């Protein structure tokens, strides 16, 4: 009986020692995770070149009779925080464009021939994707790390990072980011309301690596309030070739329209 007691005590002490030493050796702090979020933003921002891609959005909704497909060409000049989106599908909207510079976004109405300001918080028509999702990522400047834990997501060891918004411009008050421990790539973000209700989950299951940049080539936005409502965004035809300055202008948006 006494031997059993001693053995158990030693085992407990050894476990405690191992836990403490391993924790201190591999511990990461909130500040370091904030830096990793900055790294994530940096990796998805193309400041040194222009960025162009074709973006396909497939949306399902219980009220839809069939999935809705929208396709765009996206032009980005992250150095000026400028973006243009030109509709490719549906055919009836082909050529319609949106221009965003900083927080100013204009959409062009082909009927009235007028530009109107749109807020970045609004969803892209018929999808679960917000205009805000299409700008260069700024998760590190929009949110601060308030805590984290370690976990596993599929095949990957992850940090599960609790984030709190630092400004009112972002659509979600709190987020939970799942970041791979080995390369700090974001896999999943859960977005919460002020009352801590899960509103949306965003999955990033595939990435393309371009030099030191990582761009999510598949993103799934799942509405957590309406079962079966989601939008899958795939990105292809990626190019870093220079885009003419004239593209980032109202004149271009007006001219390409039907």
């Amino acid at each position, binding site marked *: 009986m006494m031997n059993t007691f001693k053995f158990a005590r030693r085992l407990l002490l050894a476990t405690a020692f191992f836990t403490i030493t391993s924790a201190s050796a591999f511990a990461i702090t909130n500040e370091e995770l904030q830096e990793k979020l900055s790294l994530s933003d940096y990796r998805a921002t193309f400041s040194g070149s222009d960025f162009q891609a074709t973006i396909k959005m497939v949306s399902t909704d219980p009220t839809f009779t069939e999935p809705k497909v929208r396709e765009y060409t996206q032009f980005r000049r992250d150095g000026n925080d400028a973006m243009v989106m030109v509709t490719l599908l549906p055919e009836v909207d082909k050529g319609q464009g949106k221009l965003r*510079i900083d927080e100013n976004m204009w959409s062009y109405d082909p009927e009235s021939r007028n530009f109107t300001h749109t807020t970045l918080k609004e969803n892209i028509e018929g999808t679960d994707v917000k205009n805000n999702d299409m700008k260069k990522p700024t998760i590190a400047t929009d949110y601060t790390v308030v805590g984290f834990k370690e976990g596993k997501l599929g095949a990957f060891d992850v940090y599960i990072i609790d984030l709190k918004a630092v400004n009112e411009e972002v659509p979600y008050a709190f987020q939970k980011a799942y970041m791979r421990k080995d390369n700090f790539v974001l896999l999943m973000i859960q977005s919460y309301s002020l009352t801590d209700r899960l509103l949306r989950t965003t999955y990033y299951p595939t990435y393309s690596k371009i030099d030191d940049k990582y761009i999510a080539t598949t993103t799934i936005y799942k509405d957590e309030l309406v079962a079966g409502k989601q939008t899958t965004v795939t990105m292809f035809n990626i190019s870093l070739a220079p885009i003419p300055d004239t593209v*980032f202008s109202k004149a271009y948006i007006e001219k390409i329209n039907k």
Partner: protein
Amino acid sequence: MIRINKIGQRLFLRFPAVLLAAAVALLPMQLGAQESDPFLDMFSNPDMITEENIEEISAPLEENFLISEKVTIGGQFYFEAAADFRKAWDKNFSYSGVLQLNLDARPVESFRFFAKAETEYPFIDTETNGSSDGLIDVEEAVKIQELYADFNIAKAVYGRVGKQTIAWGVGRYFSPADVLNLTPIDLDDPDAERTGPVALKLHASGLLSNFYTYIISNEISSVADIAIAPKYETVLGSMELGIAGFYRYDMAPKLIAMATFPVGEVDLYTELVGAWGSDKTYADNAGGTYTTENSPVVQATLGFSYKYTDPLGNGVFSSSGQFWYNGEGYADPSLAILAENDPRIVAKTILPGDLENPDRYYSALNVTFSNILKSNVTVAASWFSAFGGATGRITPSASYAFNEDFSLTAKVPINYGAAGAEFSPLGFQYTPTLEAKLFGNSQVSFAVPISPGTVYQYPFVLSLSLAKERF
């Protein structure tokens, strides 16, 4: 101390059981998300990152939206029919069909041709058939909406020449700044296209600033009648500010300022117009006319739009509104209520355009609450008013969407004001209406217009509109 030792001793003795219990308790915390979310299977593939060749993706692109090998043809068609049982039995049915076609050719990057024409039936050749009897004269059956060519000069100045709709003001329901387009904004469909003039537009566009010059030569035969309208717009923070002017030899010159900007969650816009005189001819109360010259005439408008989407999905609230002080209006708008046979109308000393917007104070308000408590119910109300003439229209409505293609709406437009006034041509009237949206923009409606003091045997209007969709 003894007590602690005893508890600890018991725990040590049961250590394997405690460990197992802890593991069982903690396991769901680790795997909970994975078990409840089938999406997480996506993360079972460790090769989720594909390395791209930077040389390949840095090659120049061939995609160009400014060039097309094909000439694109598009348009829209809609058909409307109405049976108004209040009218005489032999004249209680009307119908019309409108076909709009547009043609877009972009042979080279620096040149584009665009045409949009509209034809409407039923029409009749009045020269051979005499009175049109409400039908459209064949000469007016085809209208050119837009007909222009785009070009650019050294990829720095973009030009458009021909008949074109012009983007000028920022007001949604009223736009006093828009002195260029020929038709006013349709209050019931503010996004509807408008008819523009024949003009040459030159547009120099930067990242945050734009400079436009319009040289307008609509239906003129003398160089002296050419008008010029420059506009400069720029972005200051989150405000877009525009300054413009309008000059034509025989018309009142105008200076215009406009801005759009957010305040918190609300988007605001404003227009301010100062003119030296007015181009309108006014009716006086003695059966004559007068004009306003050599004195300043000011117009100002302020509008807003706001949208709130409940984060828990319990509804979407949206609202927009606008107030317009129209310095060109009558102090007494009833002076603008003229009979069709008024000598000033017959002699054309007062034209229809002179009688548009006769009031000095206008307002518009739209409120919509949709997806109420996650249902497919929408309630809405709109109110358009001209305060000086005490006339307006209030339309409360409620609708239920069964699916994307079928919804039912019940509404009661209420027109108030004196007979002949802007929003109440028939005086006070309310019209309970039931509408069924069938597919696209097609709908059937059944309305019962009710005017106190007027009795009809069959006070019903049944109308149908079909497939008003672009292709």
